[in-house]
């Protein structure tokens, strides 16, 4: 009995002890290892292909961000889609847009706080927790809080923008996404978010899958369903904020949903479907960036259109 009690105490303490180690590892990866890796990789790629597509610093950063989104968005999306929560990403993205607007407003007044993406992160996470709270507290249909947040976030954003003095170009880049508008520190932020998402999903995939497939049985097995629900929705918020820079608040949900929908047509296995949806995500990102460069159209839109083409192909085949 005493040993059992010791073990039950030990686990949270062990987890807490892991936090500084993980933070240190993140710091080393993002600030020490990633920049030379980034330069080395794109230097080599530029040396091999020598087109503006891979040699421009703007596109190198955008490409990297796109690749990271193509990994994380379908991974999180795979659980969401199978819980019929496909549109939650859209709601969180709109709340993140509200956060960006507030961030731009505050940043214009206080230059040291000029980091709108951080505001977006806070807004989306709060919205995620709030939505979880509403889901627990009320018996209403699940799409009601989604509709409230979707419109509410946008309303907040528009209200703040119309009141303050903001450059239209900046607002538009968050609304519609702009691949040429990704500063290097945002790429670093995305590397961090990607590692966080992949690490968390790698650890908790089993619980997330169990709850997604059979909630009742997961509760019976005494898995903490509410904790993992909250975890998933917060992860979604992180992914959405990361993806917003490329795809824009309006198109973010597409990347969470469409590659997963396409992958589900091809496989009977959830695990294989997860891998396949990441593959489709990458195809959409690469194809979208390439075609937008060829035809000179908006990148975020092109990525989503390629993803939809993949989906239609998966339905027909």
């Amino acid at each position: 009995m005493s040993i059992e009690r010791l073990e039950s105490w030990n686990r949270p303490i062990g987890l807490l002890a892991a936090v500084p180690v993980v933070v240190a590892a993140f710091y080393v990866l993002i600030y020490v290892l990633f920049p030379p890796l980034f330069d080395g990789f794109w230097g080599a790629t530029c040396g091999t292909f020598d087109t503006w597509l891979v040699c421009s610093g703007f596109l190198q950063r955008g490409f990297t961000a796109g690749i990271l989104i193509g990994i994380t968005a379908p991974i999180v999306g795979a659980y969401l889609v199978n819980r019929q929560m496909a549109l939650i990403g859209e709601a969180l993205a709109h709340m993140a847009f509200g956060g960006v607007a507030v961030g731009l407003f505050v940043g214009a007044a206080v230059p040291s706080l000029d980091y709108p993406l951080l505001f977006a992160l806070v807004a989306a996470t709060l919205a995620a927790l709030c939505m979880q709270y509403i889901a627990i507290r009320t018996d209403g249909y699940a799409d009601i809080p989604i509709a409230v947040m979707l419109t509410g976030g946008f309303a907040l954003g528009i209200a703040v923008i119309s009141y303050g003095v903001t450059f239209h170009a900046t607002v538009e880049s968050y609304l519609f996404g702009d691949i040429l508008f990704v500063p290097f520190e945002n790429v670093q932020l995305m590397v961090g978010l990607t590692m966080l998402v992949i690490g968390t999903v790698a650890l908790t995939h089993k619980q997330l899958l169990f709850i997604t497939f059979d909630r009742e049985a997961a509760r019976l097995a005494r898995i903490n369903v509410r904790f993992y629900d909250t975890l998933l929705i917060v992860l979604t918020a992180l992914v959405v904020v990361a993806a917003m820079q490329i795809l824009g608040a309006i198109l973010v949900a597409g990347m969470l949903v469409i590659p997963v929908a396409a992958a589900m047509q091809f496989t009977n296995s959830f695990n294989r479907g997860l891998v396949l949806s990441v593959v489709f995500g990458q195809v959409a990102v690469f194809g979208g960036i390439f075609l937008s460069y060829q035809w000179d159209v908006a990148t975020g839109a092109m990525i989503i259109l390629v993803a939809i083409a993949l989906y239609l192909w998966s339905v027909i085949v």
Partner: protein
Amino acid sequence: MSSVAAVENVTFAYDDRPVVEDVSLSIEKGEFLGLIGPNGSGKTTLLKILLGLEQPDSGAVELFGTPASKFTDGTRLGYVSQQSSEADSMMPVTVREVIEMGRYPHAGLRRLNDDDHRVVDDALEQVGIVDLADRRINQVSGGQKQRAYIARALASEADLLALDEPTVGVDADSVDQFYDLLTELNEGGMTIVLIEHDIGVVAEYADTMACLDCELYEHCETDRFLESGALEKAYSSARVLRSADHSSAEYATGD
């Protein structure tokens, strides 16, 4: 005491409509209990209370000698519900992946290891669906699907298997095989609680029977039970006759 699960003076109501009233029931290790009762009699609710999925308004619930609210060893419980939720009718999950879920609570945050996979293989074999392992769960027949859920409970190393009308929509031949499997598991030491509307089937397979219609009418060995007249009492109660008039309303609120 060798009681696997016990409820004492349990009462449960949805809003102000009582569903379970002052029920006491104890399930012993190795018992095969058939729980029957008319539609809307609170069978499913009682089963959920027994498993700790619902909190009773009053009364005590114990699982393996521990109060249900403090019971953490969920791997000892297996639950096969009526043809399951909507999610599994759409979601791409293989039969093997479903059974692996039984190992998840054992594994916690670590990866499944060779031992886990061996247990899963054994469970597949024991319920006789090895050849279906890589099929999508929603593309196998109803009976095969329910076998897969039993295999999941086996993979979880459950000691108590609760089944809620598991054979609704399963064809007759498969139903017989399904109950043979349950008997086999019960002989191997598994405690079983079965909710079933087909009284003939329950009488044939269960060791003990209990009849519920909001309150518990009887709980004893099958032979004695059939002679006790509890069935007639439960099925002719004022409650049943009333609900026959409002059967659609009863359906809407579930039983």
